[in-house]
């Protein structure tokens, strides 16, 4: 894993460099927010990059699945809170239960949509990039409009469980927002889970082999299309969870949120290298951190800096940090 070292060093430098310009307490808050944002973008980018790596499909509908996950989770949260008041109750258990149920709702809805998308829309156009892009773009328009019809076109306020609102004071010195910590923990857990799945199980082995050379996997007697559907569903589920968490992070959701997040995810996937989950994680953290630092120092340059990182990475490594150049 010698290749992993330079990007990690870059990440570390990026973490510490802003300390020159920002006072330590603000730096800590920004770092936590940046890591949380990075982890949430990672959830979206991980699915995107895996789907691309395995199936060679650039899925523009990923952003719509993100929105659908957020809205599905929102409906579950609203329902649960309306019936038992789990979001407003001070009990940690009830709060966690609400979060779990909402996540389950997001996972079920967005993975189901993902399966439908893969089977109906994407499967007929495997191998034709132009039509893949066009057709998933069409699906995005339809899915986003369906949200506007089902939930209305306006912003909705996301119910956030009490335990995860506000902040923890550590020794009266540092104030740490609670929700970002949850998001970071979730992102880290997802990454660990994906790593274990990809590197320590038989399914993961086949998926990785498929990324490497999917014809060979077929020749070995595996039904690659079943794995395609499974990976598409898993990627969609991750996007859905990402959408829900992003909605809770901002405490509001909008039908167009997915499209905006998709652009971040694209940048992250390009930085990390198409098809690499680790690359996506590093890319997402880079983008999340630098976005927050720069937004604090020079608010208007925030989007520009993520673009600058992307351009810089492409200059040095045209295939992205961990890309194989496939």
């Amino acid at each position, binding site marked *: 894993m010698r290749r992993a070292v330079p990007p990690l060093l870059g990440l570390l430098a990026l973490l510490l460099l802003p300390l020159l310009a920002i006072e330590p307490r603000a730096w800590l808050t920004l770092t936590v927010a940046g890591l949380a944002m990075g982890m949430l973008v990672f959830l979206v980018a991980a699915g995107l990059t895996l789907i691309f790596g395995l199936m060679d499909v650039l899925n523009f509908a990923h952003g719509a699945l993100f929105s659908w996950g957020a809205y599905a989770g929102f409906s579950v949260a609203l329902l649960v809170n309306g019936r038992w008041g789990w979001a407003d109750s001070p009990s940690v258990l009830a709060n966690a239960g609400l979060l779990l149920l909402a996540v389950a709702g997001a996972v079920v809805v967005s993975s189901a949509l993902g399966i439908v998308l893969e089977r109906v829309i994407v499967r007929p156009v495997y191998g034709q990039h132009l039509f893949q892009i066009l057709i998933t773009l069409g699906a995005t328009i339809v899915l986003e409009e369906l949200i506007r*019809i089902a939930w209305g076109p306006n912003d909705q306020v996301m119910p956030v469980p009490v335990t995860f609102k506000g902040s923890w004071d550590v020794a009266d010195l540092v104030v740490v927002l609670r929700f970002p910590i949850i998001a970071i923990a979730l992102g880290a857990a997802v990454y660990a889970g994906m790593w274990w799945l990809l590197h320590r199980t038989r399914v993961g082995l086949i998926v990785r082999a498929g990324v490497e050379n999917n014809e060979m996997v077929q020749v070995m007697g595996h039904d690659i299309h079943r794995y395609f559907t499974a990976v598409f569903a898993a990627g969609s589920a991750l996007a859905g969870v990402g959408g829900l968490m992003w909605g809770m992070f901002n405490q509001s959701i909008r039908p167009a949120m997915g499209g905006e997040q998709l652009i971040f995810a694209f940048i992250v996937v390009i930085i990390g290298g198409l098809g690499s989950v680790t690359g996506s994680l590093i890319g997402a953290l880079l983008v999340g951190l630098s976005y927050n630092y720069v937004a604090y120092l020079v608010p208007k340059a925030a989007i520009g800096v993520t673009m600058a990182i992307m351009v810089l990475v492409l200059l040095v490594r045209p295939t992205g940090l961990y890309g194989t150049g496939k």
Partner: protein
Amino acid sequence: MSGAGGLTPVQAARAAARRRRWREPTALLRLGVLIAWALLPATAPSFQTLDLALKIALFATLAASYDVVIGYTGIVSFGHAMFFGFGAYAVALAVGKLGAPTYGHLLLGFLVGIAISATVALVIGAFSLRVKALFFAMITLAFAEFALILAVQWSPLTGGEDGLSPKLPGVFAAGASGLVGLSGRLVTYYTVLAVCVGCFLVMRRFVHSPLGRTLQAIRDNELRAEALGYRTFVFQLVASSFGSVVATVLGGCYTLWVRYVNPESALGIPIMLDVLLMVIIGGIGTLYGGIVGAAVLLTARTLLPNLRGLGATVFAGSEILQRLSERWLLYFGILFVLVVFFFPKGVLGTLREVVARRRRAATPEA
């Protein structure tokens, strides 16, 4: 080896095509469309019709310039509306912000817009086309979003969300009576129409040139083209930059006609989707398909508000039904998916296929 008359087979085929050119029924059709557009101001009942007609011409040309990139070169760009916006903003800024408007300012606006677009297109292409044409789609999308945010945030220069409404110089100005007693509007109409026709001719030349043929070869099979010794990267770069520059010129014309530019009307992702839809409906890789696509889409868009009012009265009882009738973009999306699925060649492409099949049936030999 050259053939009997000192011509290579390719040259002979081209000469034959050139002789046939004016005998094709579509040549007359094209001429007819052009004459209709030229005569329209004399017969148009209202300004709204005139406005719609010119916008169709403008967006048809824009769709054609996008077709050069997506249909003839096979690279998907989401930055085409951005280049259109560069032109629109460059002209609006040059004419509106540098003191009293003159023709020099107008020219300057176009030239600066073209220079910026060409540079940006080359830079984006240099980053993304090197590895994979797919990168281009993602990176242009990111850049387009960046340009949109820039236009909104940099309000001292761009006017932010409110945009700019520049005053035009000389014969283009509203009240001025021009050369032969034409009003400023009409002078603008004919100028923009002439630019559109000019752009079409240039693009036609471009795609039928040896360069254009190489591009189509790359689109059809990149590996083969590379194996034949073409540097595909350079060709793709040239094509995407060419398309972007044409889009910039059209953006400038848009400002000239509408006299107003804001981020939403000239730069946004919705414009990009419109143009994409026009190309798909008209037929990808047909150049003239954009005319059909633009006519269908813009006419529908103009008539839709009336339909929406109708929907509100018919479905007054049910909120869901009312919402369903309001979300016309949903139907565009469904139409889009269906067209891509069942008529991937669009209206013009499908027509051409039918005609070609019939011709083949008529002359079984050949």
